[in-house]
């Protein structure tokens, strides 16, 4: 089995076990306010980090494709205009693809 397959299976089963823990663990553990706050902040910090890495990581050094950045910026404008996920996604890839075609 390739390392990628193994990583996929570990992560997938791990995510399932987290769901199972939620419906199995005693309430007192998961209901603790500090635990809840950390859990609430985790996706915020990590999604934000993922945005940064997707935009600026060129494989261990900083790199930036201005066409990708322009596409994501167009997506941000869509978010500011309260558009849904699908519109944001389509605008971002459309702008990037168009700029790539033209440049």
């Amino acid at each position, binding site marked *: 089995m390739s390392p990628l397959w193994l*990583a996929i*299976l570990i992560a997938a089963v791990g*995510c*399932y076990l987290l769901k199972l823990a*939620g419906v199995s663990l005693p309430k007192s553990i998961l209901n603790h306010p500090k635990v809840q706050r950390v859990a609430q902040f*985790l996706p915020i*910090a990590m*999604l934000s980090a993922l945005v940064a890495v997707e935009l600026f990581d060129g494989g261990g050094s900083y790199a930036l494709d201005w066409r990708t950045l322009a596409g994501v910026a167009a997506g941000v404008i869509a978010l500011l205009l309260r558009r849904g*996920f699908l519109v944001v996604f389509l605008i971002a890839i459309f702008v990037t*693809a168009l700029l790539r075609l033209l440049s």
Partner: protein
Amino acid sequence: MDKPLPERGTILRAAIGIGFYAMAFGASFGAISIGSGLTVAQTMVLSLVMFTGASQFAFVGVAASGGSPFAAVPAALLLGMRNAFYGVPLSEILHPRGLTRLWTAHFVIDESTAMAISQSTQRAKRYAFWTTALILFTLWQLGSLTGALIGRAVDPADIGLDAAAPAVFLALLWPMLRHPEARWVALGGALVALALIPIAPPGIPVLASGIVALIGGLLPTRQPVEQIHDKDPI
């Protein structure tokens, strides 16, 4: 026999709406996953077994950054932690026991939780959970497969797919940023990741941002704690 559930039609319509939204979301996942170097089979195992959107996107995002694929495992797990917290309200609604618990757990995600807890009676809550879960699961798989096949047919960079992953992460993040505290955590997470890009192995910058959440969560606060499930779906 029980009387028919009065809210049945309303819940079913909402679940179908969420399902189609998830299908589009799943299609973007499928395409991005192929663009990140996974095969169609690997993409589908993630959708079928992991079955939690943000973790799936994070896994392929980190896997695409090169280095060991195992660096993507903790990123997916940390993002999947919120599903554990959904178990608290859901256990009181569904009372899963024994083997039912193993089956129920798989469907504990943002959307099924949000739909269940927003109903007013226990019966409506149970119906909303299962309707949303099963419709969404089916359409999520269909969307993932379609997206993966499209992603295989074209060059991802040609259709601008490299902009899709950061745009998707931003769209997921956006509704969580209503509180100023959340914005500070987001800023901190991005800065930690940026600082580590040139010095840490792939995957570590995203993981290290979790420390910001830990510090932010453990600091004393004057604001009341917001309920974990009080969030927008997806």
